[in-house]
C-alpha cells in the first residue's frame, strides 16, 4: 500500500468519497479514492466507480463500483465518507448504514404524523359542518 507513503508532508489520509461532476441541474458523481485534504473535485488517486443520481428511461439509478480496487483501498486503510458508506450499504457490499435505517424510520414517523394531522381536522370540520370550508392538510 504505497499511497500512504506518498502523502504530502504530514496528515491527510486516503478517503473514498463522491466527486461531483456534470452540468447545471444535471449532477453526476464519481466514486473516487483521494487524499482527504484535496478539493472535492480535484486530483484523485483512482476512480473506483460512478453514480448517476437521476433515474434513466427505465426508472433506474445506475451505479458502477469497481469492487476489486475498492477492496484494495479498504485494505490499505482508506476511510469512507458517509454517503459512500450508505451507497455501499444499499449495494450490499457493506451492511446497511444505521443512518439509512434511522432516516427511513424518521421519514415514516413524519408521514404518519402528517396523515394524522390531515385526518384530525377533516374529522373536526365534518362534525361541525358549518361554513369554514378551509382547505385541510398541508397548504402551499
Amino acid at each position: 500500500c504505497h499511497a500512504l507513503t506518498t502523502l504530502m508532508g504530514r496528515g491527510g489520509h486516503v478517503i473514498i468519497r463522491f466527486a461531483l461532476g456534470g452540468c447545471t441541474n444535471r449532477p453526476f458523481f464519481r466514486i473516487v479514492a483521494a487524499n482527504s485534504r484535496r478539493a472535492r473535485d480535484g486530483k484523485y488517486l483512482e476512480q473506483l466507480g460512478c453514480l448517476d443520481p437521476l433515474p434513466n428511461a427505465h426508472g433506474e439509478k445506475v451505479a458502477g463500483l469497481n469492487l476489486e480496487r475498492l477492496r484494495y483501498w479498504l485494505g490499505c486503510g482508506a476511510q469512507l465518507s458517509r454517503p459512500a458508506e450508505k451507497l455501499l450499504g444499499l449495494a450490499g457490499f457493506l451492511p446497511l448504514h444505521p443512518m439509512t435505517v434511522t432516516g427511513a424510520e424518521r421519514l415514516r414517523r413524519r408521514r404518519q404524523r402528517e396523515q394524522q394531522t390531515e385526518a384530525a381536522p377533516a374529522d373536526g370540520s365534518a362534525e361541525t359542518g358549518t361554513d369554514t370550508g378551509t382547505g385541510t392538510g398541508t397548504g402551499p
Partner: protein
Amino acid sequence: SLLSLRCHSQQPSDPSAILKLPAKRKLMPTVQGKAAQPKPAFTDEAVQTLLYKMTGLDLHKVFRPEKKGLKPPHYKLMTEAQLEEATRKAIEEAKTKLIMPPVLNEREPIDDVLAEDKILEGTETAKYVFTDLSYSIPHRERFIVVREPNGVLRKATWEERDRMIQIFFPKEGRRVIPPTLFKDEKLGTVFQQDRHEDVLNMCIAQFEPDSPDYIRVHHRTYEDIEKHGKYDLLRSTRHFGGMVWYLLSRKKADGLLIDMINRDLLDDATSLITLYHMLHPECQSAKKAKEQKLQGVDLIKVFVKTESQREGYIQLALQAYEEAMATSSAS
C-alpha cells in the same frame, strides 16, 4: 468488423473453443421413451461436418464487397504459384468467416433475492442498479444487483444485465437499447427486401446467443426463408448451418431438399438426409437406411417415400435431375 463473431469479449474465435460450449440440448419435443442413445447436439463433430459441407464455399459471395469507405482498387502482378498461394490463403480466411454461431437453448430467467430490508420501504422512488466494474471477471460471472424501492436486494434480470454490461463495457455493433428493427412487425419489411443475412448479422452483434430475442429473430428468419424458398440467400454464409438444424429438428426438410436437387447439389442432399436420420433415428427411413446401408440417390428415394410431405414435387425434381444427368453423360 461487424461480421466477426464475438460471443463474449473474453472468448477466442477459433472453432475448437466455440465447439467446447456446454452441449445443451436443442428445442425438441420429448421422445416417447424408447431411444436409449442421446440425441445429437448442434455441437457434435459429425453434425458440424455435415452442416459445414452443406454450407458451401462460394468465394465470390463470402468476399463480396462490403459497404465500407471508398478506396481505389489495389492490383498486384503475380505468378501462377503466387496466385495459388493467395487463393489458398483466401480459402483459409473464408473458413474462419464461415464459423457457425452457437445454437443454444433459451436461458432461464434469474430470480434470486439476496436481502430483504422492509425498513427501507418508501424512502426511495427509483431502483438502484449496482454493477461490479472489476476488469478481470467474465461478463457471465459479473455481479449486477438491483435495490428496489421496497427494500428488496435482488440479482438483476438478463435484460438489465445486458444493458448494464453494454453501458460499462461497450461492444462494437451493439446498442444499449435494441433497435426497433428486431420487433416482429418490422422484420416483415426487411424480409421483403431479401436482407435476411444482414438481419442475422445484426442479431448476432446485438444479442447473446441464448437470449429469447436472438432465438426469436433467428426462428422468424428461418420460417420466412422456408415459406418463400429463399434458401440460396444463406448458402455460403455462416447462418446456413443454423437454418438447416432448425428445419431438420422440425422435420421441414422438403423445401430445402427440392432446392438442392434443382441446383444439382446431390452431395448436399445426401448429407441433409444423413443428418435427418441422425436427428430422428426412430423414423422409418432411418431404420431402412441403416438396415440396407443405402448411399446417394437411394437414400433420398427412401426418405421421399416414407417421410416427406411433398412427395410429388421431390419425385419430379429427381426425375428432372436424372434426365439432365443422362443427357449430359450421353452427349
